[in-house]
Structure formats: C-alpha cells, structure tokens
C-alpha cells in the first residue's frame, strides 16, 4: 500500500521568545547553527510538493525568529503549497505582517495562552499576552485566513467563555480549542496541566453552544485530552500515512514527538532525498500496516480506524513502542493513565503551580549539545 503525504510541518527553528510549559518541541532542541538554510528549505518544499504535499505549516519554535520567514513563505507558494504560519506573534510589526501577506501567506494561526494576562504570562514564562492582543486586532484587516489557537488545561479551562469572546472580538475564521497533548514539555508538566473529567465535560457543552451560535461566522475545532477517552486517537492519521514533520536540522519525523523512541533512527534531508525517506526509510515503515501490532490491537476491529493509537505515548508509559496506546480502555497498561487521572481529582489537584518545568531556549545551548539530557539551567520556576 502506498501513502501520500498531504501536509508538511516545517519546524524551521527551535528558537522562541516564549517558554511555554506545554511546548510540543522535544526536550533536546536544535541550535541555530544546525538549522537548514533558506535554500535548503526551498529545495525541500519542492521535493515535498512532488511527493503530493499540498499544505505547508511553518512553525517552530517561533518561525519569525528567522529573518528569512518571508522568503520561506514565498518558496512554499512557489512550490504550489498552501502556506500556514503558526506563530506566537511576538515582535510581528505591521510592516513585516504586510510583507508576509505580500509574499503569499494563505493563513496565520496566532496562539494565545489564556484570555487574561496573568495566567497567560505564567504559562508562557514571559510577558507576551499584551503583544498578542495588539497583533490580534490588526490581522483581520488583511486578506488572509485567521485562526486563533488557545491551548487549554486545568488552570485556564474555567475561562473558556472569555476565550471564545476574545476570538469573536478578533473576528477570527477559526478557533482551535486545543487541550494540551502530553508530549515534550507538556509530559513533564502533566500533573499540573491535566484537566478534571468534569472540566472536560463542561468545556464540550460550552463549545457545542458556541458552535451553534457562531455558525457561518466562526468555526471551532476542539481537541480533547485523550487520557479521558475510551479509545485512542488515530495519531497523525496513522504513522507515516499522510503527514511529515521536518525539524530545524532537517531530520524528517512522522510526528512532533517521535524522537523519544530510542530504537528508531531518523534520516535527514541533507543526506537523503525526501521521497526515499518517506517511501523507504526504516523509521517511516516501522508502524505502517499492522504486522507490528500486539494484542489486543492485532485482532481489534478498530485497528484500521485508530492504528493502535499513539506510538510515542505507548513508549512514554510502557517503554515499548509496539504496545497498545495506554489510553485505550482495552490496553493492558490503562492503569498507568488512571493513576495520573486519580491525582487530579479537583481543579487544584496535582503539584503546586510553582513547580513548572519551563521550556528552554536552544540559543542558550552549545551548538552541539549532547542529546538525552536537557540543560539543567533551563529548568525551574520563574
């Protein structure tokens, strides 16, 4: 069976002005000196388009930390791709926004951490909220699709109605209410971030009512925490089936978190053609089909729908990337997830907020930091 990638997530840098406690970047960041050049990205966008990719998501870190962001947008468009910029918005002055739109940017996704400054700045580990608000009020004036993304968790779900009101005020086309996904830095902070079951239930009702009220004006996408699900999510639509991610140094991955699986080695676009990596590399083949599956997945009728769930989550909890995703109610290791949930019986449950593990910035690291151990200097509270 052949698979065609439709989307390329390009992590063009790991540098970022924010230090969000739920950042999806890996704990081991790529430094600036490792980053692909403008010309290398341009070549890669062409290779991706030739493979069937239609959509390019420029992300990071903060993609605008690269002075060539406008050129990257232009290169993506020249390759025939729909170009999305996923940004914190920090430092995006009007002249640069105009330049990005002129370069052909199709869609901008602006992240918020909260509807109120104190909570937002605590999560971001820096003062960012006011600048985001200022930018948010300028985007609608441009002919560009506009999504507001707000990551929700136990500490901010109480303000979901105010977040929706903010999205209305900014006149966004789409609001993403995205529960934290527990990988990367978020996994480190999971006991402080995971909402209660009651909070999740209430948020679904609030989103449903808002969808009905805002029909035709704003779409609302909602990502629920899979820890409360009966069955796992079809992670990335299946491993290596429709999507790929390229990290700042050119390493090609099936998802944001895949580097946590130590038995896999991933190829990079500096040494191999993208088509070979997608079609033939061992890492991309590893979890295609169902030969790798264990029971209960192998004989499960849902295996063609959820593919046994997330391989990274299986590894993080069981140490075995072939295991059934532990969030599945049928998984032998479901008890590991229930133990995390049991610690979060109330909105105040879990560790006190002063124990946040903040994301580090790779520019603080030596050019070739040894993998495996995050810098201790980046840990701790603000």
């Amino acid at each position, binding site marked *: 069976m052949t698979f065609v990638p439709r989307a390329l997530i390009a992590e063009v840098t790991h540098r970022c002005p924010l230090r969000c406690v739920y950042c999806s970047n890996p704990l081991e960041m790529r430094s600036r000196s490792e980053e692909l050049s403008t010309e290398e990205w341009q070549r890669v966008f062409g290779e991706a388009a030739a493979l069937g990719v*239609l959509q390019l998501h420029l992300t990071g870190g903060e993609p605008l930390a690269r002075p060539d962001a406008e050129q990257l947008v232009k290169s993506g468009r020249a390759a025939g791709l*729909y170009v999305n910029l996923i940004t914190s918005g920090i430092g995006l002055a009007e002249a640069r926004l105009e330049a990005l739109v002129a370069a052909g940017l*199709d869609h901008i996704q602006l992240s918020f951490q909260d509807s109120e400054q104190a909570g937002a700045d605590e999560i971001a580990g820096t003062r960012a909220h006011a600048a985001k608000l200022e930018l948010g009020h300028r985007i609608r004036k441009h002919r560009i699709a506009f999504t507001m993304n707000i990551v929700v968790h136990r500490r901010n779900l109480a303000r979901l109605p105010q977040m929706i009101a903010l999205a209305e005020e900014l006149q966004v086309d789409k609001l993403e209410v995205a529960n934290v996904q527990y990988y990367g830095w978020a996994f480190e902070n999971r006991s402080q971030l995971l909402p209660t079951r009651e909070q999740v239930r209430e948020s679904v009702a609030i989103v449903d009512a808002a969808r009905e009220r805002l029909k035709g004006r704003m779409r609302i996408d909602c990502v629920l925490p899979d820890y409360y699900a009966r069955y796992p999510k079809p992670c990335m639509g299946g491993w290596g089936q429709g999507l790929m991610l390229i990290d700042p140094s050119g390493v090609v991955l099936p998802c944001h978190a895949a580097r946590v699986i130590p038995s896999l080695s991933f190829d990079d676009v500096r040494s191999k053609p993208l088509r070979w990596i997608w079609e033939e590399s061992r890492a991309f083949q590893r979890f295609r089909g169902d030969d790798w599956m264990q029971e209960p997945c192998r004989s499960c009728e849902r295996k063609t729908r959820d593919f046994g769930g997330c391989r990274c989550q299986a590894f993080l909890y069981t140490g075995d990337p072939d295991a059934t995703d532990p969030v599945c109610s049928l998984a032998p290791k479901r008890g590991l997830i229930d133990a995390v949930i049991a610690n979060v019986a109330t909105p105040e449950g879990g560790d006190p907020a002063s124990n946040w593990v903040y994301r580090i910035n790779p520019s603080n690291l030596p050019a070739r930091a040894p993998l495996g151990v995050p810098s201790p200097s980046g840990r701790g509270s603000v």
Partner: protein
Amino acid sequence: MSQAADLGPVLLLPESMLRLTGPGPRIVELCDGRRSLDEVIAALQSEFSGADPEMIRSEVVAFLASLQERRALDFA
C-alpha cells in the same frame, strides 16, 4: 484552489481540504472577490443552458452556504 495529481481539483483550507467535483471547481473559480452572487449564478446559468436555471440557483446558493460554514468564503 489547487490541482492535486491524484485527487483532481481541491480547495485548500486551514488544516483541511475539500475535493471539488462536478461544477464545483467552476463555481469556486467564479468566486473571484469581484462578481456578486447574482453574477456568479448568471454566469453558470448561461454556461449550463440545458439545465433548469432555478435549480442552478438553489444548488449554487446551497454550495456556497456550505463553503461559508467552513469559513472558505464570505458574502460581502
């Protein structure tokens, strides 16, 4: 709107896409930001002169309403 080698015409939207079939690509093409709804309908009625003009009108309106709901277009 874009052409995918193996899917045909697709309308690309933030993090999703819509495969366009039948008169879909032509309708999207006519929505150029300048034509009014009536002008889009009139153009299609003259291009598909064998079909019932009222049926064309109601189908175009329904199609564009579904695109508006997906936030793919706005009525000015």
